[in-house]
């Protein structure tokens, strides 16, 4: 199954890539990682919990997005990911 990519690399946005994985993995790249890395990780973790996803890799290329932007991008990615899963 293919990876799903949502978002952009513009300032204040993020690019989320979600793909099937043998376990749960979250990778974050961010210019504000030192200040907000843990916060970004918990936002992603909470959404994944809400969708009960445990076997995916989420790669977040952050460009200083606020929490609601990351949430919106990730939820869209998950919805498309599930659609693709059902089609295949």
């Amino acid at each position, binding site marked *: 199954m293919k990876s799903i990519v949502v978002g952009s690399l513009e300032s*204040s946005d993020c690019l989320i890539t979600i793909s099937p994985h043998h376990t749960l993995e979250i990778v974050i790249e961010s210019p*504000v990682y*030192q*200040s907000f*890395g843990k*916060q970004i990780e918990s936002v992603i973790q909470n959404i994944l919990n809400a969708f009960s996803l445990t076997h995916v890799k989420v790669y977040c290329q952050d*460009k*200083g*997005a*606020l929490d609601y932007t990351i949430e919106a991008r990730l939820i869209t990615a998950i919805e498309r990911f599930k659609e693709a899963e059902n089609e295949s």
Partner: protein
Amino acid sequence: MKKYTNLTKLLNDLPLKDGMNLSFHHHLRNGDGVINLVLEQIEILGYKDLLLSPSAIFPSYTGILKLLQQDRVKHITTNYLNGPVANFLAQHGKPSSLKMQTHGGRARAIIESENKIDIAFIAAPCVDHKGRVSGLYGPSACGSLGYAMEDLKHASVKILITDHYVEHLDDSQVKDVDIDAVLVLDSIGDARGIVSGTTTITSDPIGVMIAKNASKLIETLGLIKPGFTFQSGAGGVSLRVTDFLKSYMEKHNIKASYFSGGITKYHVEMLEKGLVEKLYDVQCFDLDAIQSLKRNPQHYAISANDYANPSNPNRVTKGLDIVILGATEVDINFNVNVTTDSYNTIIGGSGGHADTASDAFVSIIVSPLLKARTSVVKEHVNTITTSGKHIDCIVTERGIAINPLRQDLLEKLKHSSLDIVSIETLMERAYSYTGVPESTTYKGKPFGVVEDRDGTTIDTLHKKE
């Protein structure tokens, strides 16, 4: 004055030695060809323990980087740097290898022999056979040579390097100076890199809103009156403030006394419309400013000493009513950082920031409160460039903070409709969007200092790891 056409021959005749202090200026900005040319020869000749005093360091100044990589530079004194040299120092800099000064502070240190320059290599766009110098003519014209003047007056050996050698220049920008030698080359720079890239008026809606707030603040404080004096940087928001002032001045028929600092086409336009009497130009930011220096007698090229030397009682900055400045970070004590980002990367430096903020009657910082997820206002700045006691107002898109030390300003704003809040409130407003940042920035070993204009150390620069 001896004339050379070959750099190697010139260097053979100079009293070169290990540990010598070499100075350069940055008027050709990223298009400068002189600093790399000279330092490549110095590298070949094998000198070490060098002291370098360029007025600023741009990304293209790789000649410095090569010498640093070979551990042949003992110390660098400069006012502004970014790019590879800045990154190298922040990663590999030895203790006390960098001193960052202000434009006025550099002039003071050179004049007062605190910074003794052995040889000044001065890129000179136009030179005549008597050693008269002008920045106005030639393929590498840059306009004002403000930051090179003290080097040319006080260095032990003074060298001009030009690609436009003429019979006779009517007017020299550097007066009463004995030049030791002139080196005539095919080219001293790349004109495309000489013009600054930052001089476009902003049309970004947040930038326009900040500029509008700043102009309203200046009006409410009653600062726009006949004969007022003003300086704004060349940043897009600063220029938008200047543009708003222009409309106000036209409407109310007010003429300013002078504008100073880095000059752009927007300043020139106001001079030619009769909205301002004089321009005191220490650095031309665009071609319009260079052309204006040729045709407008009221547009003066001035030296860094005339501009901002704190020991010079007649300095231009001392008479400033208003200065508009930028900031990378501001803390709750109004200290401003324009030297590093929040993670110890050097991104610039004071230039004239501390000089003008210290002298102007009202200093105003214009900045977006939020730059992506980073709040400009925070509890502590990573590096202090300008002390908070000199910063009066912070203007953002989400409110304005006035330094409590300026009760006189707060009194005037008591009945204003402007969104005046405490600086803590500005910070809380930002954190309500971003969340509270973890203060985990690791500070590595110190490798340099930031110096205030009077020579006192105002902060320490730390390595990245």
